[in-house]
Each structure stands twice: as structure tokens, then as C-alpha cells.
């Protein structure tokens, strides 16, 4: 027991500090990827609902491919292809090659994956808004931007939150996959700590507890946000 506490202590003889740095990186990437996914999702949902036939087909292609191929394969493909493409572009334009930081690459790759799922969630949520509300806003002469900001986004929020909450939890867990491409996040930090100290069970269990706490705290906050977004609406239990 004393040895476990010593191993997990946050100061250097213990590896707790390393795990916490890994957790920080995980949360940064998850938040960044989720945010990027939201932006892609809103654009994608708008494209799927109101876009022309070509845009719709291309978006259908994007969401189908991303949801049919394992995240691990997508991460490898986008990680290598993305950094390679940017560097080739830079050299073609006469700039120096750059090292793309793992953080940016991880956010971009996971955000691209999240965007596909997010598109579907948002599309469903926008379709769930009573059509009269959007028509009324158009009748008042609102511009599309104002309509999006004042009507569509707030009105779809209660319908989108359960799906988005799921996506956030998936994002936090998908960051673990970046360990495979060597990005230093919680799972890789855990593996390094475990490999050095040979206390595999201790560290993997500790990391499991950290991930679980992240999920449970997220659930608490999501519950708050959902209650706020659904204010004034009949509760779910009464509606059924």
C-alpha cells in the first residue's frame, strides 16, 4: 500500500505528475477535437439540409466513410497524409518544412472524425425543430446568419445535447488512440510509467479511475447543461 502511494505521488519519485500531464493533454485534445467537430457538424448539417445536390452527395460520402473505417486507421492515414500534404505544399510554395505539433495534428484528426458523427447529430436536431419557428423567422425577414444564431442554434440545442454528450464522451476516450501514433496523452503516459516501474496493474487501474472520473464529472456537467437548455420545456418523463 505504501509503495502504491509512493508510486502515484505527484512529485518525481512517484509518477502521479506524469499521469496528470497526460490527462491535461488528453482533455486539451478532446476539447479541441470536440469543438472542431461541432463547427464541422454545424456546417455539415446545413450542407446536408440546405446544400445543393453535389454538396449533399459529398457530405454523405464523408460521413459514410468516416463511420465505416476504424478510428485507428483514419488517425494513421490523416496523421501521415495530413502532415505530408502540408509539408509538400509548403516546399512547393518555397517555405521551410515544419514539424506539426502532436497537439494540433491530434485535434485536427480527431476533429475530422468527430465532425462526421456531429453532422448526423446536428442534422437530426435541426429537423426536430418545429418547422413553423424557422418559417416565422424567415417571414420576419431575418438573414440566414441571424436565423442561425437566434433561432436554429438555440432551438435545436435541447435535441442535440444527448447526442453531443455522447460524442464528448467518445472524444475523451478516442484520445487514447493517439497513444498508438506516439502522442503523449494519459494512456501513453500510463504505459511509460508502468513500463519503467513494472507496476502495470497499479498504473493502468489508476488511469482507469482517472478516465472514469472524467466521464462521471462530464456527466454531471452535461446534466446541468441539459437542464438549462431544456428550461421551460416539459420534462422528458411527462412527454412520454
Amino acid at each position, binding site marked *: 500500500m505504501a509503495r502504491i502511494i509512493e508510486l502515484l505521488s505527484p512529485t518525481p519519485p512517484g509518477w502521479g505528475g506524469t499521469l496528470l500531464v497526460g490527462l491535461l493533454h488528453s482533455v486539451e485534445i478532446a476539447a479541441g477535437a470536440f469543438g472542431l467537430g461541432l463547427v464541422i457538424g454545424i456546417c455539415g448539417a446545413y450542407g446536408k439540409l440546405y446544400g445543393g445536390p453535389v454538396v449533399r452527395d459529398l457530405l454523405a460520402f464523408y460521413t459514410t466513410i468516416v463511420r465505416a473505417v*476504424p478510428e*485507428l486507421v483514419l488517425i494513421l492515414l490523416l496523421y*501521415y497524409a495530413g502532415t505530408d500534404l502540408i509539408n509538400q505544399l509548403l516546399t512547393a510554395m518555397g517555405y521551410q518544412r515544419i514539424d506539426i505539433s502532436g497537439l494540433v495534428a491530434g485535434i485536427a484528426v480527431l476533429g475530422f472524425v468527430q465532425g462526421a458523427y456531429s453532422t448526423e447529430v446536428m442534422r437530426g436536431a435541426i429537423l426536430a425543430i418545429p418547422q413553423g419557428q424557422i418559417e416565422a423567422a424567415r417571414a420576419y425577414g431575418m438573414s440566414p446568419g441571424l436565423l442561425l444564431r437566434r433561432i436554429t442554434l438555440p432551438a435545436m440545442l435541447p435535441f442535440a445535447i444527448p447526442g453531443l454528450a455522447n460524442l464528448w464522451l467518445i472524444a475523451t*476516450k478516442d484520445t487514447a488512440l493517439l497513444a498508438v501514433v506516439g502522442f503523449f496523452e494519459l*494512456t501513453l503516459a500510463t504505459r511509460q510509467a508502468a513500463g519503467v516501474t513494472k507496476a502495470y496493474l497499479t498504473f*493502468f487501474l489508476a488511469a482507469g479511475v482517472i*478516465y472514469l472520473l472524467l466521464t462521471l464529472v462530464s456527466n454531471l456537467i452535461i446534466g446541468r447543461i441539459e437542464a438549462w437548455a431544456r428550461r421551460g420545456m416539459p420534462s422528458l418523463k411527462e412527454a412520454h
Partner: protein
Amino acid sequence: MAVEATIVNVAARASLWLQPHRIVLIVTGLALVFAAAFFMRWDWLPQYYEMALVGLWRTLWILAVTCTLGFLLAVPLGLAQAAGPFWLAAPTKAFCTVIRGTPLLLQLWLLYYGLGSLFPQYPWVRESWMWPYLRQAWPYGVLALTLSFAGYEGEVMRGAFAGVPKGQLEAARAFGMSRWKILRRIWLPQAFYRALPTLTGETVLQLKSTPLVATISVIDIFAVSSKVRQSTFLTYEPLLLLALIYMAITGILVFALGKIEARIPNKIG
């Protein structure tokens, strides 16, 4: 007459689907595929062909075994949460929460490195009949994927069991059926029908989780592609082919499970 009508119908549907912009998109797509086939290097294929088939077989085998075992485990997990007493419902709920709240990669590494480092310390484990299996990687992969599938599907089964109308169960009891017979004849079949639509999605998710076993040295199709990349120094070709293979498996899975789903009576409850 009827045959003519169907032909016209099919032709009309085809022309509706095959709009001019789609033809352009398809031509562009085909051009990209041909460009990839001609301008990228595929000369390594004959050499790794057999290895890839073995890897593919292993992936499919792991998928089938973990989905089956996971579903069998999910039924009692769901039942315990939906109808079990507190001392049974609480631990199963905790199990599902833990499985769904932590990354699968971590669970896999916990089992493989954690348990794998624990077992050799005990002589009785090393002398048991299980030791030849415990020394290999695949049992840990199968165990982790099975538990993961059971955790996710257990939550679905809980909802499915709870969703069967009370009147059905009361009617069964009024007929004098024993509790076991109610479960076997009324409750389980209806819950199963309710859970089936989610099963396609869960199976596809499970397929997408299988490449994780490559990180604990199981040679599945993903590991074969990594091996090709390491020995030929090609970045894109093996990964693109791998993505194509996974897409094909997903397509077949969705099609086949959709056929099964379509045979279910859709008026339930």
C-alpha cells in the same frame, strides 16, 4: 404486364438516382481509383497476399467470437439491471459504467500487461492447463473485446427488458407460467427484438475496435498492414487498402444484418 411495370419502375428509380452530377462524381471517383492503381506501388501485394488473408480471417474470427460471447453476457447483465435485486443490479450497473467510461485501449492494456505480469508470479497458474493459452496475446484481446461489447450491449438490453409492456408479463403469469418459462417464451424474445436494431450499429463499432488488438501483438489485418508499411517503407498504399477492406466488411455486415432485421415482425409491444 407486371414484369414490364417493374422494369419501368426500376428504370425510373435508376434515372432518379443517376442524376447528371452523380455521373460526374462517379467518373471523378473512378479516375481517382485508377490513378491510385496505376501511379502508386502495388508490387508488394503478391508477397503479402497470404499473410493478409490470414490476418483478415483472424479479424473476422475475433469479431464473431467477441460479439457472440459479449451478447450472451449482455443478456444476464441487462436482466440483472432491469429486474434484479439491489445486490445484483448495483454491481452490474457499476460494471457497465466502468466499461463504458474508460477507453477500450486502456482496458486491453490493463488486461494484457496488468494480468499478464501478475500471472507468472503464481506457480499454480504456470502449472495449470490454462498456462499455454495465458502466455499468448489473443485470449486477452478476446476477453477485453468481449467485456467491452457486453458492457455496451448490456445497457441496451436493460432498456429492452424494461421496455417490454407489463401487461404481457402479467398475462403470462395469469396463464400460470413459471418465471423461467415467462423469461424464455415472452420476456427474452420481445426484449431481443427490441435490441436487434441497435445490434447492427454495435457490431460495426465492434469491428472498428478490433484493430486495437494489434497493439498487443495479435496479427490481425491491421497488424499485417503495419508490417507491410514497416518492411516496404510505403505510407499510403497499405493504409488505403486497409481502409477499403474495413469499408467492405462494414458494408457486408450492414447489408446482412439489415436483411435479418427486415424479417422481424415490426409491430411489437
